[in-house]
């Protein structure tokens, strides 16, 4: 069975030459020390970030938000409102940075594109039968092409967790490669749905698999299951992108998504990024937050820093 190799040639190009080499490579990755990983994530979460550092972190976090609405009830009006919010997160303070992107379903890409036109805010679209990803490859690719044709700058795909858990890594690999090709110039984020992968070892394998197949971003989860982004699984993925760059020279972004609701959490994630992957990743080209309610909390904290008084939900939009 012929498989297409990722575009870039690097030290690990041969790893995916066959099902068995891929399996051998993924299972040869060192096992994850669960206790150590969680302790490290928790320890980094205790850093005290105050005053000017906090102001910097909040602005950085705002600029990293993929403002997301992925609901059956999404209307063009709601997407337009979201786009406006992405461009002007806090209408009372125009020094607020824009968010990185808005993230919508493929059929809303055109609407979103129009809403953020000229602002530098990207439009990301979930595709490949999000969130389950359980359809034929043709359908997934059609989904991707539709989103790209409508103007999506970024595509968030979900992997076939069933195939991954069954050990059919090559199938997952080929799918990512095919989707990457369909993306064209759009950047590809690969969602692993870490909450469904059961073990940290699986998350590490999935991360490497995604990066080998050419992902531009690896993303924790869809936000549609019980366990989403946690500091520990994000730390693990950050270690993976760091090691991947060390071996291949290719930098891959990370996007934790789902369950990050407070500024405090967001700042903890930024500490993880800085301490694990390093400063190169402290940029919205390489790190994103998939979130919706997080932005309001960041804005309230920003208002608190600016005015000295605690703000409240009456002073941010309801969405």
């Amino acid at each position, binding site marked *: 069975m012929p498989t297409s190799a990722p575009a870039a040639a690097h030290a690990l190009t041969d790893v995916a030459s066959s099902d068995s080499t891929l399996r051998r490579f993924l299972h040869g990755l060192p096992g994850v020390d669960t206790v150590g990983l969680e302790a490290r994530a928790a320890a980094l979460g205790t850093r005290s970030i105050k005053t000017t550092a906090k102001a910097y972190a909040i602005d950085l976090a705002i600029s990293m938000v993929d403002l997301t609405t992925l609901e059956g009830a999404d209307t063009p009006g709601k997407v337009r409102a979201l786009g406006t919010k992405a461009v002007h997160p806090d209408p009372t303070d125009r020094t607020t940075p824009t968010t990185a992107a808005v993230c919508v379903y493929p059929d809303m890409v055109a609407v979103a594109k129009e809403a953020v036109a000229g602002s530098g805010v990207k439009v990301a679209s979930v595709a490949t039968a999000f969130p389950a990803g359980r359809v034929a490859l043709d359908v997934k690719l059609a989904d991707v092409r539709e989103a790209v044709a409508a103007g999506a700058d970024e595509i968030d795909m979900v992997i076939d967790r069933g195939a991954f858990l069954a050990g059919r890594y090559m199938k997952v690999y080929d799918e990512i490669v095919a989707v990457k090709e369909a993306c064209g110039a759009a950047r590809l984020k690969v969602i692993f749905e870490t909450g469904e992968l059961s073990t940290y070892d699986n998350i590490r394998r999935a991360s490497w698999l995604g990066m080998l197949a050419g992902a531009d971003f690896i993303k924790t989860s869809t936000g549609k299951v019980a366990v989403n982004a946690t500091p520990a699984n994000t730390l693990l993925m950050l270690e993976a992108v760091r090691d991947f760059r060390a071996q291949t020279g290719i930098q891959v972004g990370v996007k934790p998504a789902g369950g990050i609701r407070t500024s405090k959490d967001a700042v903890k994630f930024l500490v993880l990024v800085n301490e694990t992957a390093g400063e190169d990743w402290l940029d919205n080209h390489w790190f994103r937050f998939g979130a919706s309610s997080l932005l309001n909390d960041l804005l309230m904290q920003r*208002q608190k820093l600016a005015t*000295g*008084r*605690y*703000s*409240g*939900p*009456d*002073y941010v939009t309801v969405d």
Partner: protein
Amino acid sequence: MSDERLSVFKTYKLYVGGKFPRSESGRVYEVTDSKGQWLANAPLSSRKDARDAVVAARKAFGTWSGATAYNRGQILYRIAEMLEGRRDQFVREVADAEGLSKSKAAAQVAATIDRWVWYAGWTDKIAQVVGGGNPVAGPFFNLSTPEPTGVVAVLAPQESSFLGLVSVVAPVIATGNTAVVVASEKAPLPALCLGEVLATSDLPGGVVNVLSGRTAEIAAPLAAHQDVNAIDLAGADDVLAKELEIAAADNLKRVLRPQPVDYTATPGIERLTAFLETKTVWHPTGSLGASGSSY
């Protein structure tokens, strides 16, 4: 064998969101009785505790204001029942805190429990007194109903540590508001114990949040907080009250200024109405038809 028992000292804690946390700051301060004898260490709350309390109060507001007035009355009455069961404890607390004789403290506690019952009775009657149908010249019903203001910061009276406290807290929650209460700075222990009673009285967590510490330190962020809708300055002195009023003006908080109050007298409904908004709706009756009535 000796009969000596080791003393079991009580750790007094805050009451926020239905839980009993220590102060976020980890600080405590010494509480003494009226003669300067050490009684206990009470948490010395910080502005972050105030912020957390406001978040808890805001979260509880939907359920509490949405509960029927009758249900709120039952819960308030339940609180009185629970207080009755812990009467002896409160008599001791109040006697220590205010330097009263046992019999005087007992009278205070009895009056306090009666005050809860009194306010419990008002929950489903206040609407009839301050609301009602307004006569208008047109084919409309015009109705005014009192609605709770929202999250109310309450600075409890400094002197009357229990009767005064209940006299300012009960009317706030009786009408469906939620409260962040700053206990008397000198005598916070009865207020912290009240938290323990509230936690076992069917009162949803977050409806009343009790903070202890320096009144001026906690009140400042509460008065400036954009998500607090009203503030009762009963426990502020003149200088502090003025500062807080200025801070409160920023988001147009409803302010109840400190005034001399005899907490032993029947209170009247001023404190109930202080934190109510009047909602008036016009309701078209539709065509009245030839008979003059659409029914």
